[in-house]
């Protein structure tokens, strides 16, 4: 059993981990960059240490400093969250060398699965079909022939990439060579390794992934699938479980395939095996995310499992406390990612100060958020502000609750993608579950209805007029003044005021 865990992350996931630690009675150690000193993950933690300047490379990626804080605070483990150091095998190794438990897979599993070519081979070796593609390109000369064999359109991927990063698409042979040069330079810059491989760019496919969890005793169990086909530029923005197209037989097949790959990688802790699913129901291994995922709450809402809690217990040496047969998922869960990007302005990241925010709540709604009034959204980190998960007895209930929740969600000061999410949730094809990874390219997201827009515009005008006329206390007044004034007016008129319009 761990006693004190350092969280090498920030934002909503750091807060999520603080909460799991408190639920387990473990102490939490937060780290924060100089840009994050007011963050909620800092305030909710038991201890908090400044890890460095705002730039991630000098703070949340500063391995030496993080290990120093871990030692000084007396932490016995480090949870990396997702992003930053979560899939960095060297970091996991450095933790172990420093006598700290790394909450995640072993360094060798991370290293193996971090090489996307090696992961593909691993999947093939245990009989799991992979997306058609090449091995690592040793030179670009062989590429045109390999590409023709696979068939255009084709995706150029970085062996060290993953999670949708470092991908280029090529439709025609004449674009291949230039794209390869650019991709190699990008991969070298981004991942320190310019090795590339080719993969078929599959169209009309769904992104289906399987959550798995394993312990140190050889137990690996699947927790069912998530459908994450709603992606914008290869970034998931809406995820759900179960998938409308995965029946019991396919679920069993995918679950078994995921467990075979995980076992072959000697996997422990929480992880995700990603697949593409075509219209004929054929599935293709894509990659393994050797970490917790942003969309983990949908699985938690339907299964009742707490994946972060289980990661911490497994990290402390406990065996998994449940088996696949103990799980009986219930209902449907949908997650939306709330990001500081402006859909009305080509999704430009919006930086600035959140002057007011209010999160949704109530039955069936769960929010993971780092928002607070006064939050400065900076350009240093990614744009994820919050995640909303809605649970319902069926998909339509979950969708209705999500729409209600997003209408309750208010963020003033920076633009968010909430209106964009609301529009997606109302699209006929979304309602029908007609999803694929090209969904957002195929569907024009129209603006708000003119009617709603006009109501809002009029309300803004009226509020402005009343504000400009503000000195007049009978126009804007505190409730207390109002109350006494009203009470007497009420009694005068016996039955009270009655607006003309009704």
């Amino acid at each position, binding site marked *: 059993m761990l006693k004190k865990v350092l969280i090498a992350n920030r934002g909503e996931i750091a807060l999520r981990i603080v909460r799991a630690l408190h639920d387990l009675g473990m102490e939490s150690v937060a780290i924060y960059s100089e840009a994050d000193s007011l963050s909620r993950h800092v305030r909710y933690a038991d201890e908090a240490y400044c890890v460095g300047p705002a730039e991630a490379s000098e703070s949340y990626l500063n391995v030496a400093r993080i290990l120093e804080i871990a030692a000084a605070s007396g932490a016995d483990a480090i949870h990396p969250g997702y992003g930053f150091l979560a899939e960095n095998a060297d970091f996991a190794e450095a933790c172990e060398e420093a006598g700290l438990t790394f909450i995640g897979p072993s360094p060798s599993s991370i290293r193996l699965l971090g090489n996307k070519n090696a992961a593909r081979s691993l999947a093939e070796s245990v009989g799991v079909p992979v997306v058609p593609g090449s091995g690592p390109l040793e030179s670009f000369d062989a590429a045109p022939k390999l590409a023709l064999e696979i068939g255009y359109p084709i995706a150029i991927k970085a062996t060290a990439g993953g999670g949708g990063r470092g991908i280029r698409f090529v439709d025609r042979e004449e674009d291949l060579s230039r794209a390869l040069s650019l991709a190699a330079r990008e991969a070298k810059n981004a991942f320190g390794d310019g090795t590339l491989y080719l993969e078929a760019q599959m169209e009309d496919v769904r992104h289906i992934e399987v959550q798995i969890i394993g312990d140190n005793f050889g137990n690996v169990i699947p927790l069912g699938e998530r459908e994450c086909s709603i992606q914008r530029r290869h970034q998931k923005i809406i995820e759900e479980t179960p998938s409308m197209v995965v029946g019991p037989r396919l679920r069993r097949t995918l679950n078994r395939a995921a467990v075979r790959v995980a076992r072959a990688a000697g996997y422990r802790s929480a992880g995700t095996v990603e697949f593409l699913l075509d219209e004929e129901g054929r599935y293709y291994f894509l990659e393994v995310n050797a970490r917790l995922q942003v969309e983990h709450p949908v699985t938690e809402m339907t299964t009742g499992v707490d994946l972060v809690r289980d990661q911490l217990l497994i990290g402390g040496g406990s065996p998994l406390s449940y088996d696949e047969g103990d799980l009986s998922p219930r209902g449907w869960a949908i997650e939306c990612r709330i990001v500081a990007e402006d859909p009305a302005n080509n999704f430009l990241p919006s930086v600035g100060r959140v002057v007011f925010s209010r999160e949704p709540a109530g039955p069936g709604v769960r929010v993971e958020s780092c928002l607070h009034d006064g939050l400065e959204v900076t350009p240093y980190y990614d744009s994820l502000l919050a995640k909303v998960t809605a649970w319902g007895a069926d998909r339509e209930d979950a969708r209705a609750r999500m729409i209600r929740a997003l209408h309750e969600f208010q963020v003033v000061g920076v633009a968010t993608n909430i209106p964009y999410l609301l529009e997606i949730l109302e699209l006929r094809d979304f309602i029908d579950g007609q999803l694929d990874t090209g969904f957002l390219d195929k569907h024009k997201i129209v603006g708000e209805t003119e009617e709603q827009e006009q109501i809002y515009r009029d309300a803004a005008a*009226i*509020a402005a007029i009343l504000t400009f006329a503000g000195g007049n206390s009978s*126009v804007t007044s505190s409730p207390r003044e109002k109350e006494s004034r009203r009470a007497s007016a009420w009694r005068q008129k016996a039955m009270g005021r009655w607006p003309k319009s009704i």
Partner: protein
Amino acid sequence: METESDGAMAQKHLIEIDGVPINAELEVQQDGDSRVRLAPDMDWQTVELLHIRAGLHVVMVDNVPIELYIERNASSIEVTIGSRKYQIRSGLTRLTDRGSTKSSNMVDGLAIVRASMTGAVLEIRVGLGEQVEAGEVLVVVESMKMNNELRAPVAGVVKRIVEGLDSQLEEGEEVVAILPTETPQESS
């Protein structure tokens, strides 16, 4: 309350919302209720503005509550409803020239491409003196882990361009200057 004027005096309010003028009237009734009509030919609506806490208000329009956030600037107020934001000015201000921001991107005959946000230069796709097509990607800027492509507004020749990968850009900073090959037109 049944008659329209009822002895109460109406105030005229000429406001401008996102640049669109509105001729409104506000009337405070003897019972303390207020009514607004947003144009002479529109219906009166019973309205009330309630203050909840700094910035946060509810406006009631014929019993429909709408929560909004009001921020005052020097010359205008900004009203946020949900994720929509409205800029509102009071008085007889004229419409500003809506093309001005756009045309200011032409300086000394050069089309200036500016950084639309703070970020770092990730990729420079063209060189000084190169011929570019309208819409071609010139520079890729990374901000919040997202790549944003800056494109040529017109066809022309690159006359100035930002130097150095990873250099930091401020919002509005010049990134590329292009000498148009033909008479510049407002591109869509």
